[in-house]
Structure formats: C-alpha cells, structure tokens
C-alpha cells in the first residue's frame, strides 16, 4: 500500500503567474540517511501550506533547507519564477524567508521593541546610541499591524509563550518576511492562545504573506490549510486540498514506511499477573486521567505523537514528577515516594537520553553496570572490586554487550551496546518492570533488533515492559498491545490484532 498514493494532486495552473517560492527536486543526504529525496514544493502569496508527515519524514530537514541552515545536495530554488540560491541563512533572509522556531530567538531581559529590532536598532543623535522614541514607535506600529495591542517597552521575560510567539512573528514581519515557516506553533499554546494565533495567521494571509505550517493536529490542518503536502521517508507523497481529502486519507498517505529489519518475533507469551496498574493518573505536567496496566510477560506500547504526554506518564509512574490525582499500584502496593522508592520496589526507567541521564560516559562498562545496585551488592558499604567485576562480567556475557572488557569506557561503545549497559544496570538491581523511553533512538538497524531481542527475553523470563516509541513501525513489531495517547490523555487501546501503523496514527491524530 505504499505505492501510488498520488491522490488529489493539485494542478498548479489554477494560480496566476509563478509561485512566490518554488523548490524543485531537492535532495539532501546525511551519512546513512536520505533525509530528502527529490522533493518539490511551492507556495503562493497569501496561502497557508501545511506540511504533514511522521517523525523522520523530512519536515524538519525541508524547513532547514528553506531557511539556509542546511545546503541541499541537489535541486533548485525559484523565487517569483527566477532561479535563486539559498546557501546560507543570510540568503534566506534576503528572500524574505523567516522561521518561527519552537525555541524562541528572543532575549529575555530586553523589552519587546529591543527584541524586534535586535541588531537593527535605529541610531540616535549621539553616536552609538539608540533612538528610543523611534524604536518604540516602529515596534508599536508593527505590533498593531498584526493586531497585537501591547506596550512595546514590556520586558519579554514577563510574557507568556503565546505572546512571545507574537513578538517573534512581529520580528519576522519587521524584517519584511514574505514567507513565514512555523514549526508546530500551537504545540505549547492553550486553546484560547491558539485562537489568537489563528486570527493572526488569517490577517497575515490577507496581507499576502505566505505561510508554511508544520503540524500534527488534523483539525488544524483542515481549519487553516489551503494546501497540504505529505512527506514520508524524505519523499513527497502527494499534495492535496483540504476540501478534497479526509483525515483518513491523510493518515493513509503518511503511513506505510518500509521497514528493513529482521527480528525474531516471539509472541507466544501468556501474560501473567498484573504488575503495574495506573488508575486515573493526572499530573501538573499535562497528562490527565490515565488508566493503564502492564502484566508480567508482556511488552506494552505507549505511543502517540511527540508531546502527547508519553514521557510525562513514564516520569510520573517512576515518581520523578508529582501526581495531582490517581494512583499507581506496583505489585499490589501503591507507589508513593520518588524515584528512589520506585527503584527499590523494582521499577526501572530507561530514559530517552541515555547518554546524559542513563550513563556516566567516561566511566567503565563495569562501573556503570553496578552503579544502581551498590546497596544490594555491597550491604556492608565497602566496595569489593572483585565482586563488582564478577557481576559486570556476568552481565556483559548475559546481555552480549560487545566490549573488549568491563574496563572499557562506556562512551566508546556503539549506541546499541550503550543501551544494553543501561538495561544491564537495572537488571542488576533485580528490576521487574522496565519502562523504555525511545529505546532505539540513535541506534542502527542491527543494534535495534538486538535490543528488541533482549527486551523479548526479559519479558519471557518474567519481567514486564512498557515501551514508549515514536516509531509506529517498531511498536507494531515489538509490542503485544499498545495504548495511544493524544494531548495528555489515553485516546485508545489497540490489541495485538488491531495494532497497525494506520490505527495508531488515527488515534494519535484525531478521533477515529
């Protein structure tokens, strides 16, 4: 089903003249990955062009090529029909392309006006000074032009996320940006704040500004988009008009990634007793009313889009974030304390950023393997090097960690083997429930299947696992069943039989 999804391709002939900006056949390759493969894309003034795709589909790469942060390996750019080059951020700025990044480019302790004109301050009468009256007046005018009524002498530090975004847009407008690229602009906004942003977008459209809008939220895509381009695996799958398509069709266009991974699946598992039960969990970090359970001998997936609250659920279960409601029951006993308590009970969190949160990279494999179980291994408080070495060597052998010796620094191992060390570290503590947060991030294909095999063995031998992943294909491959999250809530549960990429995305993006 991955072929021939060129549904509803919009003919460009309906527009007058050349597009404001056109990309033709853009390709960009990184070692081992083809980030963009012959992608063409165009945008007209006064249009919102939605860019849709799964994680790793190439949206960010395309955006970075557009703003000059990456140089395309091949392909051409045309501005109003004329061939141009975008080789640097300066080139992009000259063409009037501005990116509203999620991490803001604002200086917190300068005021709004100073931020808008940073680096372009109008000179005052005395050399080197700034014409304060002019900068405030100009800022006020630009803010008014986008319908943002605020005193430009307010310090940015005092503004909320939505208002900072408005300042960011005002900054782009002041640089005469004609093409605005917005990367998931509503990700950090409340519904009311999003309304403000949408009103602003309508206004910018009316002024002839072209907007490239990256979003995961299906309702937004239909409410705002004039055209929708879907990317998958770095390729342009198709361009559709919102009035001629449906959410289901968009999901079908996004899924169907090719998986080149061999993995000896072992689904002949009989789930045992319930190990972890979460009831009505809510936290201040944005998840609410979560119900889930994990049994012995099974791997349960926790999926959803980035930012849907998966990691927050894991952190709350582990006691790293305080819960505001609900209970977490592990082996029949409620978890009440912090991470210390959870770890002592037999929970293990294998964090997403294993390099910073899971390992001491400069220390040896052996040290890293015993560091979480020191109290258990050395109840007397004295460190016996021989015992530590024996435990380390056992684990290296058991997990087949490819390392010349237990004395090797962990930082020198491959990503897959580093991940095994993190798992081994928790294995040594006698953990019975493993929470894996993006366990295969940054690990090559061979390493991935080894990690999966290891996870499988852990649960067959009596452990339980909760796996968070943005890779829908991996969830489908590894998990016995899965919960899908959307905007901080559980949107649905999929049994093994229902577990397909399409079903996950449907639940993750909109009401099925």
């Amino acid at each position, binding site marked *: 089903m991955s072929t021939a999804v060129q549904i509803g391709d919009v003919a460009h002939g309906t527009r007058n003249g050349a597009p404001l900006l056109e990309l033709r056949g853009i390709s960009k390759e990184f070692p081992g990955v083809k980030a963009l493969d012959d992608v063409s894309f165009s945008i007209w003034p006064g249009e919102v062009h939605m860019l849709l795709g799964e994680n790793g589909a190439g949206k960010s790469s395309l955006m970075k090529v557009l703003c000059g942060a990456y140089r395309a390996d091949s392909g051409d750019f045309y501005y109003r029909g004329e061939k141009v080059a975008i080789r640097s951020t300066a080139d992009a700025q000259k063409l009037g392309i501005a990116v509203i990044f999620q991490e803001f*480019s604002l200086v917190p*302790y300068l005021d709004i006006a*100073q931020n808008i004109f940073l*680096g372009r*301050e109008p000179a005052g009468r005395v050399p080197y*000074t700034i014409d304060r009256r002019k900068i405030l007046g100009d800022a006020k005018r630009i803010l008014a032009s986008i319908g943002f009524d605020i005193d430009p002498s307010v310090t940015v530090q005092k503004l909320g996320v939505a208002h900072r975004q408005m300042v960011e847009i005002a900054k782009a407008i002041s640089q005469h940006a004609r093409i605005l690229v917005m990367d998931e602009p509503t990700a950090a906004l409340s519904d009311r704040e999003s309304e403000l942003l949408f009103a602003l977008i309508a206004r910018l459209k009316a002024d002839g500004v072209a907007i490239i809008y990256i979003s995961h939220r299906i309702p937004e895509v239909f409410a705002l988009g004039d055209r929708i381009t879907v990317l998958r695996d770095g390729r342009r799958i198709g361009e559709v008009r919102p009035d001629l398509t449906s959410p289901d069709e968009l999901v079908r266009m996004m899924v169907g990634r090719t998986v080149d991974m061999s993995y000896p699946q072992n689904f002949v598992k009989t789930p045992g007793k319930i190990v972890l039960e979460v009831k009505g969990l809510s936290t201040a970090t944005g998840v609410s009313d979560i119900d889930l359970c994990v049994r012995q001998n099974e791997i349960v997936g926790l999926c959803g889009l980035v930012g849907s609250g998966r990691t927050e659920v894991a952190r709350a279960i582990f006691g790293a974030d305080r819960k505001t409601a609900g209970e977490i029951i592990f082996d029949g006993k409620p978890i009440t304390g912090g991470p210390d308590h959870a770890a002592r009970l037999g929970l293990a969190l294998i964090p997403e950023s294993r390099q910073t949160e899971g390992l001491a990279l400069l220390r040896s494999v052996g040290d890293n393997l015993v560091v979480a179980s020191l109290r258990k291994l050395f109840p007397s408080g004295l460190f016996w090097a021989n015992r530590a070495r024996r435990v380390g060597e056992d684990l290296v052998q058991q997990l087949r960690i490819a390392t010349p010796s237990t004395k090797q620094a962990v930082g020198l191992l491959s990503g897959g083997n580093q991940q095994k060390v993190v798992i081994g570290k928790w294995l040594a503590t006698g953990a019975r429930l493993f929470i894996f947060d993006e366990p295969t991030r940054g690990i090559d294909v061979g390493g991935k299947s080894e990690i999966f095999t290891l996870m499988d063995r852990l649960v067959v031998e009596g452990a339980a696992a909760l796996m968070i992943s943005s890779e829908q294909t991996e969830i489908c491959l590894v998990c016995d069943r899965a919960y899908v999250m959307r905007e901080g809530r559980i949107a649905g549960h999929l049994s093994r039989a229902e577990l397909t990429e399409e079903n996950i995305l449907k639940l993750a993006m909109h009401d099925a």
Partner: protein
Amino acid sequence: MREGAVTLPVHPLQRIPGVAIMLGLLVVVFGAFAPGFLSVANVSNVLVQSTILMLLALPMTLIIMTEGLDLSMGAVLTLTSLAVAIVSLATGSMLAGLAAAVMVGVAFGTINGWLVSVIGIPPFVATLGTLGMAQGLSLIVSDGQSVVGIPHSVRDIYSATLLGIPVPVVVALITYLAFDSLLYRTRFGTYIFALGGNREALIYAGKSPTKLLIAVYAIGGLMAGIAGLLMTARMNSGHPTAGLGLEFDAIAAVAVGGTSFERGNGWLPGTALGVMAVGVLRNGINLMALPSSVQVASVGALVIFALFFDGLRSRS
C-alpha cells in the same frame, strides 16, 4: 484579539528592591550601634572609600550579565596600582602613571576576553589564571616591597574636592552615569543583554559575540586601571597586595544588587546600592572596633542573606 500586557498585581512594598531594604537596615543598625556612623565626616568617608569598589563592580555587572566572571580584577588592580606608582615615580607625571595603568588593565582585560570567547576557556578558570599572573607580576615589579615616594600630584587626587565633593566620589558618579548610558542607551548595551540572554539571537542578528565579549572584559580591565590610580593615591604608595580580595567584594556587590548569574538579567542601580551596602557594612564593623576578619565574613553573610531574602520575596 486585544490583549494587554501580562503583569501580575504587585504589592507596593514588593516594588522596593531587596538591596535598598538591606542597605536601609544596615544604616539603621549601625546608626544605632556604631559610634559616629552618621557623622558628616564618616558618611563622606564611606562614600570615598566605596569609589574603588564602584569602579570594579560596575564592569563586573556587565561581565556577569554575559554569564561570565572576572576573578582577576583585584589582582589586576594591584598591578595597575603599582604601575601608577612606578611610572609616576619615574616620570614625575600623574598622567603618565594613569596611562600606564590603563594600558596594563586593558591588556589584561583583553586577554581575559580573548581566553573566554576565542579560546573558549570557562571564565572562572581563565580569570583565575590571569589572577595568578597579575599577582605574580605585581610581586616581581615591586620586588615584594611597597613603592613609596610617589609625586604629590597622585596623592592629591584622593583628597581634592570639586565644588565641595571629593574627587573620587565625582569619578564614581561620572563612571556610574557612563555605565548606565552604555548599558541602557547604546546598541552595545543591548547586545550585552543578548550575550547572556540568548547568544543565538545575536548571531542570527549578524553580530559577533566574540568581539562583544572581548570588549566587555576589556572594559573591566580599563576600570581596574582607573581604579589603580585611586588606590595608589589613597595609600600614597604602591603596594603588592593592594587589591587583594577586591574581586570578592565586587562580585558580592553585584550579587547583592540583584543581578542574577543567568540569562543576562542585570541591574545597574542595584549594583550601586550593593556597593554602598558592602561599604557601609565594612565601615560599620570597623567603627564598632571589631577585627577586620569579621568584615570579610560579614560581606559573605550579606551575599547569602540577600539572595535568600530575594528568594523568599519572589516566592511569596
């Protein structure tokens, strides 16, 4: 979509900066317990004695705003003070001494800035290194002895008055106004906020953080040079430990004044009040005839108390 500025209602008392309350408390306490604290002569004395610290704390504020630090300031001041003494002794000219001091100071400041921005050494380590170099050079050029017999023209600076105001106080006032204008009215000042607050934004705006950082540290050196003249005038000699520990007082004054060490959050009036708080504290303890070691400990306690107090207030 009319949206006003998001400002939370603030209790009028909370508008008063913590450092002002702190200074007020110190004045009240010493006014009550330290003999002669509120006399005209003593108030003038506190002001004059605070000038050197003011000259160091103002550029220190800018440096800390860039998420940096200059530990070498005290030692560099020792060296510039010796430069004033030695050169004015040799030439008989106060201005020649000042010129030498400024050159030495700017040289050290530039080296600090270069190490931090171009080489990329953390400011703490880089300026700790130059601290050692400046201290060592001071011992070498002075041979470990005080440099005495310097011209009257140098000494007179400290006791002279302008329109009835002591010259050092005039120098400090002018310096304050200059720094205030620099930080709040010029492009350079705007970029200092960005150096600590969001360096990426600066690069994106086409400005070089490297050059700006070197300039900020060089300004620190320049001020250490000018302060060196005041120090030599005050002691009527050059002394190889003249500036010992002054960087501590300068950093303390900045911290007490409400400049945070993160994200380019600096406040120049706070630093001025912080300098006065440190000056009043040292003077008051001196008047109460307590040993000078108590001064050092109390300045340390002042910093901790001030930050604790600020934390309490911002939480309530």
